[in-house]
């Protein structure tokens, strides 16, 4: 077998696999479009390979064969993602209203793909895939994919797409680089305490300083992105973002998140501070059941991280202003406590809201009802089992009402009876 024939065979198998996926049912068109795009990519690679083979250009042939390997390697997980996005365990009702938000903010109108993944932590491929630049892929855990209450987590993941698409990351990087460098200058004595081998005149050891600064900048940029996404989702979903965040992560995983992530405490206190300035109500930190977090890494790592975190704190205000400006520019409605309270009264009676304004109002009302339901479970052991069963049945019913209300939001928008954003 030659390299050419092996590569052709691989392309044939990929095409056959994509074809089989395309033959399936697509509840929403974005998955199908992404597959067609990928199919086109591999067809293009096949043509290039044929040309190199016809010209007997062995070097090009090898290069293209290598590229085919890379693309197949990168694409297979995406094919799985697209397949899982068609599974009926997904709450397909949420996609359109979320797409409306994305269309209002993202440039180039990329299409959202929402999938239920075999991965507990929600994640996004926010236009980082070279071949799917016009798509934003958001994965939610399969076990929770049907839950409207956790929709704010998709809002956080959408924030990652906004971070890249609107060039916020580039600006934040430059600011944080500048700030971190200044921090190291002003804390040089402390730096030397943690990095005693540092010697500005030694060819090897003088590099410790730029390396430490680089690491602080890296942590700071990643943490700033996470906090931006938290604020973005909070702006769209209000308090329900914090509820969903705590539901999925509290009390923690028994260890601190990696240095690229802010601590839970920081994330919650940033949102609490914003909410307090806005006069909005958020659940108390203590009620969210997060475990105490232990300091991360060794003392040297902690110093690098501390510099990063101090500087991230300085840019939070600017990032929040940017979130508000983006929402304002896109005319994205923010949730209101009055509407959320009105919806929660309707949900309590077992009816969806007939004039919903925005996703945030709906999900906030859902969390209000959910919290009320939990408070009804008795402390009495004899009653508890029965009441808990009732609670779980009620939560399922509440989810149905929430998803129906989200569907009504889409229906009203499409028929010209609702707020467009």
């Amino acid at each position, binding site marked *: 077998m030659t390299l050419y024939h092996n590569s052709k065979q691989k392309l044939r198998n990929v095409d056959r696999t994509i074809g089989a996926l395309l033959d399936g049912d697509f509840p929403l068109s974005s998955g199908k479009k992404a597959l067609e795009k990928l199919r086109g990519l591999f067809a293009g690679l096949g043509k290039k390979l044929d040309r190199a083979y016809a010209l007997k250009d062995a070097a090009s042939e090898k290069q293209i064969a290598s590229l085919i390997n890379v693309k197949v390697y990168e694409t297979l997980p995406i094919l799985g993602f697209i397949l899982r996005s068609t599974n009926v365990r997904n709450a397909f009702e949420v996609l359109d209203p979320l797409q409306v938000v994305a269309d209002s903010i993202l440039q180039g109108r990329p299409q959202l793909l929402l999938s239920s993944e075999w991965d507990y932590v929600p994640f996004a491929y926010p236009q980082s895939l070279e071949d799917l630049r016009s798509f934003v892929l958001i994965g939610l855990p399969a076990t929770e994919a049907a839950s409207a209450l956790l929709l704010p987590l998709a809002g956080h993941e959408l924030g990652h797409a906004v971070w890249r698409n609107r060039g916020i990351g580039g600006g934040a990087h430059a600011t944080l680089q500048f700030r971190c460098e200044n921090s190291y200058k002003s804390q040089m004595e402390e730096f030397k305490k943690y990095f005693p081998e540092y010697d500005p005149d030694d060819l090897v050891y003088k590099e410790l300083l730029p390396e430490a600064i680089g690491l602080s900048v890296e942590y700071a940029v990643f943490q700033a992105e996470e906090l931006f996404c938290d604020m973005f989702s909070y702006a769209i979903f209000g308090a329900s973002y914090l509820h969903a965040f705590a539901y999925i992560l509290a009390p923690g995983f028994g260890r601190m998140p990696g240095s690229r992530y802010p601590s839970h405490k920081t994330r919650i206190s940033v949102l609490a501070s914003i909410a307090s300035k806005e006069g909005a109500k958020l659940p108390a930190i203590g009620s969210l059941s997060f475990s105490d977090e232990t300091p991360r890494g060794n003392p040297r790592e902690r110093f690098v991280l501390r510099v990063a975190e101090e500087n991230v704190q300085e840019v939070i205000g600017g990032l929040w202003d940017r979130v508000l400006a983006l929402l304002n520019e896109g005319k994205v409605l923010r949730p209101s406590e009055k509407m959320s309270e009105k919806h929660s009264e309707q949900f*309590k009676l077992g009816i969806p809201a007939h004039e919903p304004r925005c996703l945030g109002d709906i999900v906030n009302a859902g969390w209000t009802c959910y919290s009320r339901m939990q408070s009804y479970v008795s402390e009495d052991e004899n009653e508890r089992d029965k009441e808990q069963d009732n609670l779980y049945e009620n939560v399922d019913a509440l989810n149905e009402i929430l998803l129906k209300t989200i569907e009504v939001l889409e229906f009203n928008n499409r028929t010209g009876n609702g707020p467009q954003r």
Partner: protein
Amino acid sequence: MVHSAKKLCEQIRLGNDGDQNGIAVVPSPNLSTLEQGGEASVNLRLGRWFLTLRQSSETHLELLPSANARENRFSKKFFVPFGEEFVLHPGRFVLASTLEWIRLPTKCAAFVVGKSTLGRRGIVIETAAGVHPGFSGCLTLEIANVGEVPVKLISGMLICQLFFHSVEGTLSATQTALAGQRKPRLGQIRDDLVLSQLIKSKR
């Protein structure tokens, strides 16, 4: 007594705003059109979830409560976006839901009737037509194509109509606030003591 258009509109306005004695229909039908038209029923639209029965390794459908848990082995769900089509072939049968979520007060019942325009084209809707007082949720529609040509059903199209009538006398119906489904289901087969006795008494 069947509700008139005017009374229906009043009841729907109350119900959608959260009055327990009103009738909730969400999304709301166009009430001014309904009132002006003077019809004594509300037209309902086809929802986006469908459920078909499928062939599987199971040999037959069991109509006893013990078979409830096996519903998924026989059925397949589909989601069809607004304005898109689900083709129902002659002789085939599908479960769907109304787009509207209905909630009836305890003094009101309703019955579902297909639309004659669809019936004339072979589409028969709903064989278990009664909706009991206190019901909450989307109505499951049993849709069959008894005609001779395939028919395209479109999500969001008008599919059936609902007549409402008052219930007189002592009311035993209770209203469970949080209940109801947005998707069609095969439904739970309930215990039937008489049937159980008959089965046990087989000789």
